């Protein structure tokens, strides 16, 4: 336990035939830290999570979790890992309580303590009144919360959550994050994967991942600072033509749709802010606004993907 990290990987690789789903991943998570693994579909997030929880064996590289090295000590490490799979993986034909009991018993928590903890977790997840309901009959959000409760029943030091808010409505999402923030105070390390950039702001640190590799990592604020003053928001109609005109400007590096508007990444802001309105007027397009905006994580990610020469699907 000499390491300052609860979770640490070194050049982690997982191949499926010719496909390198995880391709030399290095990551570290400290106690009390919530790190986001952010990347598009197929980036290798789930594969990475499965390697970390020991559901898959790495092709090469090493993992160190709470002082245990894999693959050798994986069985000892299990007691320290709480894992919530992307797909619902609890027993749909067992009730909420039976699921929680099962995982509590299989982690061999002393009976008295287990019962107390089950009750606490049910309350914590807001599932007390659904205790007798078959897990399959829960809503998607409730299933995720039950999954979290089951992953927490043995009080793991490291929590691995694979898209915990996928398919969950905004209200349930909020509740979910509240639950997690409570856990961090207890000194757990949490690694969360998500394809949603807007959620990444919540993390202490994000790791951008694509094609099995970590493109960059850092504190969300610092990452966004990289693109300070380089994002312009453009609202013009019709948008298709406006996009073409904006893209043709020599100082515009990239144009992408962002909500109802266009986000332009520019090398400097001055030139485009004067040239583009003129060009739009020439073409007879209607300009609503064009001004600098603070960069979002999505802007940063798109920038990264382009400099890596990879596409963002």
């Amino acid at each position, binding site marked *: 336990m000499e390491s300052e990290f609860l979770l640490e990987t070194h050049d982690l690789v997982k191949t499926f035939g010719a496909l390198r789903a995880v391709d030399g991943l290095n990551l570290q998570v400290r106690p009390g830290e919530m790190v986001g693994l952010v990347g598009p579909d197929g980036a290798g997030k789930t594969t990475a999570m*499965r390697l970390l*929880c*020991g*559901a*898959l*064996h790495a092709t090469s590289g090493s993992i160190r979790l709470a002082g245990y090295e894999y693959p050798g000590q994986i*069985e000892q490490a*299990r*007691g320290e*890992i709480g*894992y919530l*799979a992307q*797909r*619902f*993986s*609890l*027993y*749909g*034909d*067992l009730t909420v309580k*039976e699921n929680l*009991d*099962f*995982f509590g*018993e*299989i*982690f*061999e928590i002393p009976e008295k303590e287990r019962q107390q903890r089950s009750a606490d977790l049910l309350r914590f997840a807001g599932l007390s009144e659904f205790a007798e309901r078959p897990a399959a009959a829960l809503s998607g959000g409730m299933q995720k919360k039950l*999954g979290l409760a*089951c992953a927490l029943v043995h009080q793991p030091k490291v929590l691995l959550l694979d898209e915990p808010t996928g398919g969950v409505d905004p209200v349930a999402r909020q509740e979910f994050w509240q639950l997690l923030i409570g856990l961090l105070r207890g000194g757990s390390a949490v690694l969360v994967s998500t394809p949603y950039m807007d959620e990444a702001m919540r993390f202490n640190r994000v790791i951008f991942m694509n094609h099995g590799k970590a493109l960059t990592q850092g504190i969300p604020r610092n990452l966004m600072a990289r693109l300070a003053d380089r994002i312009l928001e453009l609202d013009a109609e019709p948008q298709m033509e406006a996009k073409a005109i904006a893209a043709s400007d020599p100082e515009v590096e990239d144009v992408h749709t962002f909500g109802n508007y266009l986000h332009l990444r520019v090398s400097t802001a001055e030139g485009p802010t004067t040239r583009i309105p003129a060009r739009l007027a020439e073409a007879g397009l209607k300009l609503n606004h064009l001004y600098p905006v603070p960069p979002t994580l999505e802007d940063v990610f798109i920038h990264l993907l382009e400099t890596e020469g990879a596409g963002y699907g």
Partner: protein
Amino acid sequence: MRRFRAMIKKEITQMLRDPRTLFFIFIMPILQLMLMGYANNSDVKNIATVVFDQSNTAESRDLISAFKSTEYYAFDYIATSDTQVNNLIQGGQAKVGIIIPPDYSSQLAAGKSAQVLVLIDGSDPTIASSTLSAAQLAGQARGAKILAETLSSRGSTLGTNASPVDVRTRVLYNPDLLGAYNIVPGLIAIILFQTTVNLTAMSIVRERERGTIEQLIVTPIRNWELVLAKIIPYILVSFANTILILVIGTLWFQVPIRGSLVLLFVLTGLYLLPNLGLGLLISTMAKTQQQAQMMTMPIMLPSMMLSGFIFPMASLPLFLQAVGYMLPLTYFIIILRSLVIKGAGLELLIPQTFVLIGFSIVLLTLAALRFKKSLD
């Protein structure tokens, strides 16, 4: 131990909540036993029969009415040649042919034994087994009567053990007939095969198909605990099934159990091992329950057909016999039939027992080597 207990508890709870599994476990065996046992045991009546009466005398007509009175035979056809009899049976219009020789009356009159040939279509073993015994009974009854009449009227003597009417039966197409005696032990073997191979494979593959395996393998449960917990409920079910079939078999179908019950259960336990190994092996290869089902098929089918359950081993072509001898079921059927029907002890079943032990070692080792607590 708590891990293991939790896992067993979970398995049994899930088993009891799954209607399909429950049907497989409790209804299927009874259904199969009733269907097969009944089809073989019920009284068959009014079977289409062709008669070729070359004698055409009062005596021969007496014989025919003796057959008629058993109610087994409906004399739908009168033939005028052997070929005609054969054609009718081959074509399926008649199931039984009775051929009375031209010298039937004269032989009887001479105090000699008159031969009657009864041909039975063995392709339908149900009918065949019933008619076979009925024919012999009818012949004997008639013979005894003739004998009594002759003795009283003439006071002469016949050979002590020669019945005047000698009914020679010949079962066509399927010389070894099935009966409830054969069905009940065979069915135990078949049903155990189904529950163990199928349900074990299914219960593991279901975890993979539903994704629950992902949450299960990240717990500290050990490989052997997982496998044993998957297997044990079906071992219990298998013994329950065995008892159920034996009880129905003895009480309902009057099949006697002549051998030792203890030995029966011990060898049944032994027979479960290769099946469980097979089920586990399939579970390591199949990704979906449907795939698992597809994989059991190529073993299930030959097991039904080539194990001696339906067709006697000797009636199969050599290469099919070879296939049959590669199936654990084949040996267990021999064991069960010898033990239940003939009361054989272990000393007579040693070769089969060793073969089963061999199968167990091979299949369980293979399964253990392939079964990994991983999604890989």
